[in-house]
């Protein structure tokens, strides 16, 4: 499942998908994130790990400008997607969010039909020229999220009627319907049972062939299973980033070592 050795340098050789330099995030006067420099490669899974409240989710939300919706939140520094600053004036946040999709901790399908849930993104961005095109997009997205076979006969039923794991896969299908380049996942399995979690992890492994995936997770085992690169956050600072096997077996920083060995959680 995790071809760690072979893909080691391929990812970074392609050039980073996301590059951040000197990113600070303030909530009012309190600083939540200090000076983060990161490179996130394409077609790889990068995991953000760290104890609660260390700023992983806050940093994740910077990448698709979701922090814009919080009035007291201020982001400074440079965040580049394919070399372009996402906080530039010419960038439309709505369009950015179609390119950088997000899946949340608790599955949040719209109270609409399964079809309408997945079709929502393509509809508002006008990505489908006709109903047939839309049907194709919906089917492909659901198939990629490995949900198609389970729901193909009941596309008009409400999305909220599915089980937890199915709802989360529906949310993933919905996010990939806009053909994003990056998928941000904020603890996507924490509300799911182990079997559903395993299915979603399988899915993530399939998806990384087409998307850059960043997953915030509390579970180190999950990070080790699923990701090729890992970044460890602590108290708003990114302590260390690197190849997953290295971080988990031979980290450079003592704080990382302490976290991984369970000294603090």
């Amino acid at each position, binding site marked *: 499942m995790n071809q760690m050795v072979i893909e080691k340098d391929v990812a970074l050789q392609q050039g980073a998908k996301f590059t951040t330099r000197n990113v600070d995030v303030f909530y009012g006067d309190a600083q939540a994130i200090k000076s983060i420099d990161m490179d996130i490669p394409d077609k790889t899974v990068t995991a953000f790990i760290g104890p609660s409240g260390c700023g992983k989710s806050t940093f994740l939300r910077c990448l698709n400008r979701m922090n814009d919706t919080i009035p007291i939140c201020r982001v400074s520094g440079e965040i580049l997607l394919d070399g372009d600053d996402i906080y530039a004036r010419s960038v439309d946040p709505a369009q950015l969010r179609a390119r950088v999709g997000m899946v949340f901790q608790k599955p949040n399908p719209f109270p609409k039909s399964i079809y309408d849930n997945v079709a929502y993104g393509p509809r508002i*961005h006008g990505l489908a020229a006709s109903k047939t095109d839309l049907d194709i997009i919906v089917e492909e997205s659901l198939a990629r999220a490995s949900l198609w076979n389970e729901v193909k006969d009941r596309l008009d039923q409400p999305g909220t009627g599915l089980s937890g794991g199915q709802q989360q896969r529906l949310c993933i299908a919905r996010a990939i319907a806009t053909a994003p380049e990056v998928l941000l996942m904020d603890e996507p399995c924490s509300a799911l049972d182990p079997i559903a979690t395993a299915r979603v992890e399988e899915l993530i492994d399939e998806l990384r062939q087409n998307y850059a995936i960043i997953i915030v997770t509390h579970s180190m085992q999950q990070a080790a299973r699923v990701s090729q690169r890992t970044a460890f956050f602590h108290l708003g600072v990114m302590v260390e980033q690197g190849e997953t096997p290295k971080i988990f077996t031979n980290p450079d920083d003592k704080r990382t070592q302490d976290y991984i060995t369970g000294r603090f959680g």
Partner: protein
Amino acid sequence: MRDTGHIHRVDWTDPALKRRLAARHRSDGYLRLIGGAALGAACLVFALLVGSLVYAGYPAFTQTHVTLQFDVTGDRVALDAPDAGNYRAITRDALGQLFPEVTSRKDQRALAGILSNGAQYILRDHIVANPGLIGHTITLTVPVSDPYDQLAKGLIDAATPEANRRLNDAEIAWFQKLQADGAVSRPLNTGLLTNPDSRFPELAGLAGALRGTFYALLVCFLISFPVGISAGIYLEEFAPKNRFTDMIEVNINNLAAVPSVVFGLLALAVFLGWFGLPRSAPLVGGMTLALMTLPTIIIATRVAVKAVPPSIRDAALSLGASQHQVVLGHVVPLAMPGILTGTIIGLAQALGETAPLLLIGMNAFITQVPDSMLEPATALPTQIFIWADSPERGFATRTSAAICVLLAFLVAMNAVAIYLRKRFERQW
């Protein structure tokens, strides 16, 4: 780790403990008792209110009628002008035939007074609609006048001395003969809901008031619903959070508590004074009620919008929806049940508002059902106010009956609001 050498033990069989436990149970019981008594008192008061209204008003739901033979002769009614016929004479004769012993003019006038003043017009309208009946004798059922209606319903006490009574012994005897002949009936008083207001209680109805209330509520809804929802959504979703918007919020909450008579004065000065709109018009009434309902709808909208969970917004935003798409496509549809419930409750309150409508003149004596919103009209609460002031006995029962009609509408509207709320309540 704590030192757990000495373990604190409790003797659960200690009688002192048992007494304290019993005292706790007693306190529970007292609390229940007080709550139940309070609820019982409220229910009792409500039952008394409704009971007294129904008791006072139920006689008005039937109206005494008498069935007589009317000779529609050619000399009284001309074929080419049936509406100009002398129907008054026809109705007088219809009774005169049954009581040939009544000869003096005074007595004859009194006898004719058994029939309602409107009987001649009812007969006229019937003949005008069926001109082929001219020259024939027809049987028609017409209402009796108010004193006889009260007599038939047993509301005139025959024991009081004749001088103090509305009807003297002779009049009562005539009526009793009619009853013995089986000519008297007491059908349902549909006129209460279909007739406009009148000087005569037996002919008076709520049709004009109902139409006026309908127009006023319609105008109120058409103004306050869109404005209220838009303002509420803007304040909740788009307005920046600063001192100015805080002040607006405080002011809106205050407006919701302003006495309604103040809105009436405002309407009098501005709508009738500056704008020169017609007095007593349902349009003006509706505009005034809209001013009063606006704060209620704004507050209900804000509460409903606040209740939509952020997860739905986040989901929509993360897919690249712009703010207006999130608000109009997701937040508003999900908040709509709450908004509608608040609107219906606000309209139900507006239905019963009297003071502002009185001040703009909707308590005039209007005997026609209004055809447009600009014609003078009354509304249900102001009509009640007018009838309550009228001296005739018949209006006393009709006032209570009209209050029952108003309450029925209020209960119906609130029931619809509660049903909507339960039906669309979402457990997030």
